[in-house]
Structure formats: C-alpha cells, structure tokens
C-alpha cells in the first residue's frame, strides 16, 4: 500500500484495516498526531486528508491510498515554523500540549478553506477537538493570530 504523506510517497506493509494513526506513528514515526480516545471523539489524532480535517484513529489507512495526507510535521519545522505553529508558540497556547497538534490541524483546515473565518466560525470549527487543560481561550487567540499571520504571509508571497 502506498501512502502520500506530507508530499512524500511511502510504501507501507500493513494490514489495510490499520488505522491511519498507527501507520503514521508506528511505521512512519510521525508522532505529532496523538492517540486520545480511539473513537473519533476527542480530535487529538486530527490530520488533513485532501485538505479536510479527519480523525486518523478511526480512518483505515487503505481508504486513503489515493489521497494527500498532511500531518503537523508537514506544515513546518522547529527552525521554520508555519504560521499556525508560530501563532500557537507566540500565544503560549499549550498547557500539557496533547491536544495541540490536532487543534492546529483542524484550524489549518479551516484557514486554508476560509482565510477570513470569523471568531464564531473558528469556535464552531474547533468544536470536535477537546482540550482538558482548559487552554481553549489561548487556543482561540492563537488561531486568530494565525489567521492574521497567514494573511500577511500570503500578501508577502504575492509581492
């Protein structure tokens, strides 16, 4: 089975029913996406599939053989964080941090589709993702900041 993850094709030898999350973490050693509930109810495992936020813990890898998968590692690096990562760092939006990769991926999906999403839309979009430390307000601020950063980044690209 071939998987396109973060722009690279990977040949995976695995039971096709294996959840994508396990393939990402165990086979590809991409550990940003987290195992939370395993039921698609907490959002810690969120990754992008063709730009849509998806729970990787309940998505069989075989279903997405022909699709583009993006994990947090695909957005930026420590040295060169993406706008969403920069925003989360600048707002210090993590407490324990377990939910944050999923939060970032879901916010990324929203802002890619709708760069000018308003605060209500951000709140609504993040609803499937849970944070148990109570950093929701910082997370919302971080996504707001990312929205502004992305807007300037795009403006920068154009010039």
């Amino acid at each position: 089975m071939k998987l396109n993850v973060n722009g690279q094709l990977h040949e995976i030898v695995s039971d096709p029913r294996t959840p994508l999350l396990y393939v990402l973490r165990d086979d590809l050693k991409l550990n940003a996406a987290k195992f939370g509930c395993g039921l698609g109810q907490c959002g810690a495992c969120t990754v992008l599939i063709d730009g849509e936020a998806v729970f990787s813990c309940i998505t069989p890898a075989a279903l997405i053989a022909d699709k583009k998968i993006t994990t947090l590692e695909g957005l930026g690096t420590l040295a060169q964080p993406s706008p969403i990562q920069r925003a989360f760092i600048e707002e210090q939006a993590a407490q324990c941090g377990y939910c944050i990769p999923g939060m970032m991926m879901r916010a990324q999906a929203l802002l890619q589709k709708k760069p000018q999403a308003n605060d209500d839309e951000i709140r609504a979009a993040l609803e499937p993702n849970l944070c148990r430390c109570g950093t929701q307000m910082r997370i919302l601020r971080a996504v707001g900041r990312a929205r502004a950063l992305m807007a300037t980044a795009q403006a920068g690209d154009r010039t």
Partner: protein
Amino acid sequence: MSVTRIARSVGIICVVLALALAVGLGAFLIAARQPAIDPITPPPANSFAPDLLKRGAQLAALGNCDVCHTAVGGRPFAGGRALPTPFGAIYATNITPDVDTGIGNWSEAAFKRAMRHGVRRDGAYLYPAFPYDHFTRVSDDDAKAIYAYLMTREPVRAVAPANELPFPLNVRSLMFGWDLLFLRPGPFRPDKNHDATWNRGAYLVEGLGHCGACHTPRNFLGAEKSDQDLSGGESEGWTAYALNAGSPAPVQWNADTLAHYLAFGFDASHGVARGPMAEVADDLHALPEPDIRAIAAYLADRAGHARPAVSEIERQRAVQMQRGKTGAANSADSQASIGAADATHDDGAAIYLSACAGCHEGPRAVPFGGIDLALSSGVAGPNATNLFNVVLHGLPAADATHAPVMPGFGAAMNDAQLVALARYLRARFTDKEPWPDVEQSLREARSATRAATTRSAPSDRLMPPSTKPGAGNEAQR
C-alpha cells in the same frame, strides 16, 4: 367560410374566454379575501395565569414551534429558519410578541384563526409549510394556552428573509385554492370505538404533533396524501420512515419502545433520533408522561402491532434471528463471517470492519455506543438517504450538552467506497432487496449541507433505559 369570418369567430371566442378568465379570477380574489383582525396592544405578561403558561409551554413543545421558528444560532421563536420545500425555501416568521415584527399585536382571535385557517392577522394567507392543516384540530383551550405562552416570551425584533417562491406561488391568495382542496378545518373528533388514551394520542398526533407533516407522503401540490397517512415521507433531505404497518424497523415498535424513544431520543432496540427527529424528541421531553404514553399507544396501534414490551431477552433473540437470516454472526467471529457470504462485498466488508465495527459492535450500549446495524432502520429503510447523511456528516456534538456523537466519514471516504459500504451493510444486515439507486442517494446527501440537522437528540436528561420514561420531567426541565 371566409378567412375574415374565421378570424372574427376566433377573436370573439378569445374575448369571451378572456372575460370568463377575468371574471373567474375576480371571483377567486373576492372569495379569497380575508378581513384583517384589529391590532391590539400586547397584553401584559401577568394577565395570563401561571398554570396556563405552563400548559402552553408543554403544548408549544409538542408542536415544535421553536424548531421551525428559531434560526440556527438565533433567538428562540424569532423566526428566520429556512424550510426547504420542492417549490422553494419558505422562511419561518417571528412569533415572539414584538409588535412591529412579531405577533405582539395579534389578538387571541387572530392567533386562533392562523392556527385553524392559515390566515395572518392582516388577512394574508399563510403557506401550508406552517402545518395549519394539522393545527386546525387543536382545541380552543390548547390554542389559548399556546397563545398565552408565546405572548409571554421575550419580544425580539427580527424580520424573516423573503420567501424564495417563484411566481405565481408568491401570490398568497392562491392558498385560498389550496385550502379549498386540502384543508379540512375543524376540531378533532374522537373515535368512539377506541378508549380515552387512544383518542388522546390521536388528538396529539393528528393535531399539534403534526407527525404526518414529515411522515406522510405529499402530492405534487405539497399536500399530504390523505389515503397514505403516516406511510412514510421526507423532511429536509431526510427520509421520514413509515409509522404504520410499513415501518422498516427490524424490531417492531411497540408502545413502550415508542414512548422511550419519544421522551429520551433513543431506544435500545432502534437507536438514536437524528436529523429533524432529534429536534422533535428534544422537545417532546417536556411533555407529561401520560401524553407521551398516549402518543405511543396510538402510534403503536396505527402500526398494527400494539403488544406488550419485548423483554431484553426477546430483543436479543430478534437480533440473532435477524443475523441468522443474513448469514452474519455476532461480533466475536464477525471477521470470520466475512468469507463466503460477503465475497461479493469485499470492499464494503473491509470498510465496515475497520471503520464501523469498533463502535457498532463495541461494548458500549446505545445511545453512547453505536447501534447494532441489524437493528438499524437506516440500513433497512426504503433508501440509503439517512444512512449516507449519517455516514457523511456523522452526528456532531450538540451545543453545551452531552449527546451521542458519531464522527463523519465524508472527507475520508470517496464515493465508490461509500457505495460499497452501503451495499455491504444492506446485504449483511437485512434480508431486503438491494437499494436500486444508491449512487443517486449519495449524490443528494453529498450536495446538501446537513450539519445543522445531523446532530442526535441532546442527552443531558438521559436516564437508564430501564427507568420509566417521563419520571422526573418537571424537575429536570
């Protein structure tokens, strides 16, 4: 006959026809005219008795007034929610007691005329998207209580968007004709052949409950087909299952399971209410237990199998039989069963096993665990519409309360995979014919945005399924 004479004859015929048409139209418009009822100053809130308001609240909940008359994220009863119809969207109006934009200056008489005859205070016709064909059965006392309840809500200034109806349907007077054809005004008439409970249930179902508005098919003019009462209809892109003997439920409904489902939004042998029915069940929780029981008794009788509750053992037996029929086995050897019987559904079987079985064959009970799909009306139903609505969009979390949640798979599965899954589920979990138009159902479900109506019923007042429905309503509401 010369050409000029023919032309003259044709001309005369045309003039006569035009005159007849004009006279007919004039007569129609004159007959259609309804007087305005004088505006009033809104009655003060303390002019209504508390008992009347309490009853009004229950009755308004039964009528689901808030469901249509509240926009998504909007203020209660302030209107603005679009009701999609085959003719175009109709927007629910503001029924808060705001004088300028709501019903603040409506007298009780004006309110009752709207309920019974579908005519606004100012004399304009309402569209039957407002189910006055049902509400006309509501008793005088009940209409009075609902009026009292609505007139004591918080007034909200809000104007609903204009309806999206093409000419000539945007001419409200035309509804005079619709009413002549389809409206049978008049109060509910009890059937002496049945007991008081049955008649109470019939009154609630046929009147305020307006179950038929979704569960009865409609004709090309949008009226319920009276000869197919409760034989299954459609609502906002969801299939409303037949409630009569044609019900697709794998385990037959009875008065007890219906009562539990209506009061709590789920039943162990039928699953959770979702789509528009989630909103209905959410409201019905406000009803006193005897009313819930009456509705359930009446509907169970209409379904033709009013019988005592199946015990849990009987229910399990039914599940096993259902599975036996389709060659499927229980969860332990589910994998083994995907062999000969499912060879033609390899893709669907693999998807089910990896994406669905974890919850739908898991240890958690309904409503927070997935229902055994052998019990699902969605899989046994007349089409794949509801199944796709749920698989694509899931059951999103309800606001500020806990409710059964299911993740949507619309982004993870392509159309071929979804179709394979639907075909497999139909073959494995039912003994029914394959759906003929699965792709069409999927296209429709894909094209609609159902996020607003895909949630399940909120379960903040869930009680153990063994507890009697209705107990403790008052304290919890």
